[in-house]
């Protein structure tokens, strides 16, 4: 009851630094992504049952929860792999159409991605996407622009999507400094 009446005011809590790891099995060609919290990212291939996983990309990122400063409700976002701003690369894509429609009113469209494989991992619910959108719009409350967050389900063909997720790629070196 308390939650229903609350006009939530979200804050980011439990921010955890880590790595979004993308790996590919050379036997079945499946792509797998996950969040790793270790001090160092995994870099070597390994076997898991019938899969032989090869690391394709490691990017630094964060994992977080949102907490309502008013009612104390906490929403976990462990299913969120990242956000991507739509830049309009495929006229047939529904996200592209939405972006072009909302661009006139300075509303920018971001796509929320879960982890791969999509059919094997729990994905963000529409309710959580709405909360995420509320949170980022609350952080830019006095701005003349707004943001809209949609699910990656709206993208028809991810293979032709040019945009990139907000994460830190290329910030890691495989070679340690010489003096260490």
């Amino acid at each position, binding site marked *: 009851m308390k939650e229903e009446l609350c006009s939530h005011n979200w804050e980011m809590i439990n921010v955890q630094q880590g790595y979004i790891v993308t790996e590919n099995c050379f036997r079945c060609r499946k792509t797998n992504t996950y969040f790793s919290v270790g001090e160092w990212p995994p870099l070597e291939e390994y076997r898991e049952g019938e899969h032989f996983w090869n690391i394709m990309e490691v990017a*630094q990122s964060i994992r977080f929860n949102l907490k309502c400063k008013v009612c104390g409700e906490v929403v976990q976002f462990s299913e969120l792999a990242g*956000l991507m701003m739509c830049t309009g690369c495929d006229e047939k894509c529904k996200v592209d159409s939405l972006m072009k429609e909302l661009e006139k009113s300075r509303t920018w469209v*971001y796509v929320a991605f879960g982890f791969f494989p999509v059919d094997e991992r729990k994905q963000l619910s529409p309710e959580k996407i709405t909360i995420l959108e509320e949170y980022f719009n609350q952080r830019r409350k006095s701005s003349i*622009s707004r*943001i809209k967050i949609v699910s990656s389900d709206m993208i028809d063909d991810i293979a032709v999507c040019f945009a990139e997720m907000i*994460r830190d790629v290329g910030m890691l070196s495989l070679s340690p400094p010489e003096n260490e």
Partner: protein
Amino acid sequence: MKLKEIIEKLSLVILTNVEDKEVSGVFISDMLSDVMSSAEMGNIWLTVQTHKNVVSAANLIDIAAVIVTNGKEVPEGTIELANRFHVIILSSPLSSFQLAGKLVEVGLE
């Protein structure tokens, strides 16, 4: 403090279209995930990153302006994207550390 006043006082190089805005403070990081978690709307963001994703991160929080430090060249693709999404990109030959000092001198923290 207004953005145009800061641009003038610090002789910043303008790389995109500029709208005057109120600046609320300064955020320094080269990590987009830091911006996503900790930057505040209206901050000036000092970074050496110049790739297109800088525009996505700045837009998410509504950063007042991105200042690319160390005189790093910003790719044309990043500037085009910034103009389309009304993200202001400026440049300075100073390091982030030196520029932060100058921003404090003009009254920003």
